[in-house]
């Protein structure tokens, strides 16, 4: 389910900021790839740095997108089996247990991701000489945002009964 409508103002603002970054990143990716193709096709030269910038943008927008997806409750999951076989109370306990497991995973991803980023900071990309750690920081940063949204979702799940999957949209308004 889409948790965003239940968020307090601060979280809502954060979610808008993440969305804003996604829109900006997406626009930059489209523009850059298109311009590089056109320049090569018509003007006869290739922007050597475009590969590095697009992979930077792809990484950051993917992990930010992961946070945006958790705010929308949009990550893919198999809900059919539990909804059919487990009684409501069991579903509620299971859902909270799962939330805790996810929180632990996220914390370890942030911790190790931070270390990975620190370890690779001295390493430089080949064209622009950007720190490789800056590319890799996308993972812990995205996971930290994901954790913030996830913790609120968890509090919401504890306070409210489970909503059957069939009765809510999965948040992707587009589809």
């Amino acid at each position: 389910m889409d948790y965003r409508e239940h968020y307090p103002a601060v979280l809502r603002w954060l979610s808008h900021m993440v969305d804003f970054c996604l829109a900006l990143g997406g626009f930059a990716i489209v523009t850059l790839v298109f311009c590089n193709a056109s320049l090569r096709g018509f003007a006869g030269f290739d922007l050597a740095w475009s590969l590095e910038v697009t992979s930077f943008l792809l990484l950051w927008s993917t992990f930010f997108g992961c946070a945006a997806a958790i705010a929308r409750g949009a990550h893919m999951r198999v809900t059919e089996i539990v909804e059919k076989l487990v009684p409501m109370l069991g579903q509620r306990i299971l859902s909270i247990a799962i939330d805790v497991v996810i929180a632990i995973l996220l914390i370890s991803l942030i911790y190790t991701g931070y270390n990975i980023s620190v370890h690779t900071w001295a390493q430089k990309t080949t064209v622009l000489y950007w720190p490789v750690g800056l590319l890799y920081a996308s993972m812990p940063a995205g996971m930290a945002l994901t954790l913030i949204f996830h913790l609120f979702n968890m509090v919401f799940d504890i306070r409210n009964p489970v909503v059957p999957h069939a009765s809510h949209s999965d948040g992707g308004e587009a589809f």
Partner: protein
Amino acid sequence: VETLRFSHTDNPGGSRQAAAELFAEKVAEYTDGRYEVQIFPSGQLANDPKAIELLQLGGLDFTVSATGSYATHMPTLNLTAMPFLVDTYEQGWELYDNSEWLQGEFAKLPEKGFRVLSTWEAGFRSFTTNEPLASPTDAESMKMRVFPNDMIRWSMEAIGFQTVVMPITDVYLSIQQGIVNGQENPVDTIKSLRFYEVAPNITLTRHVYSPLPLTIAEKTWQSFSDEDKEAVLKAAAESATFSRNLVKSSVESQLAEMTEEGATVSVPEIGPFRDAVQSVYSKAKDVYGDEAVDKILADAAAIREALPAQN
């Protein structure tokens, strides 16, 4: 028995795998079976840059990769990719084993989390193109794929190519679809990645000597006893000799096989190519400083003089 993990990106039938198997055998032999080296070929565990990062993070013990791959951790290593530093295998071996400047750079690697044990062979980089390439004049109408590396890109631009940067996995399809006219790599790679199928004109310019330093994770290295360090170094040296002789001696047969499958092999007049890339040395000085460039150029010149080409 402690298991050590060795990752490389060559195919199971390739020369790196053969040398890796010998290395594993020798490590087991010289450490009296205290260590077993498990080999993961074809990049199934990691591509070249990731393998080096895994050395640093403790996910791998050994890898073998082109000098350029290590240059993201130590930019000056890019200077080894300057064009026409050496002309023969013997000169190249001397450069990697005994150049004072290069040894000094290698000695700084342990603080980055890994160290060089020996240098394996990959050979000299040459061109494969879909149209004949006899001189820099032919290059002017061609798009050349380059891997993300300044020095190679500058050289290609200096020769006259229009360059396109792309990952190795996209190259075959891109040549086939005409996005680029060709690529440059050692003969061994040209054969194993089958570039001659889509770019059948093989032009042996041998413009860059491009061997493969074998590296070990510093953490793993420090965990060895002195005796085991000795043993691993010995195994590394022997596998390097094996790799060097294997690659050097198989170039002719690889070229013959590719010719049989429809490729055309030619040796162009090197002079015009050599003249065309002169600007690269000054460009390198702008980026890496006069001192480093002068040192490696001096080392290379001394080696060329001491071990002249036999023809």
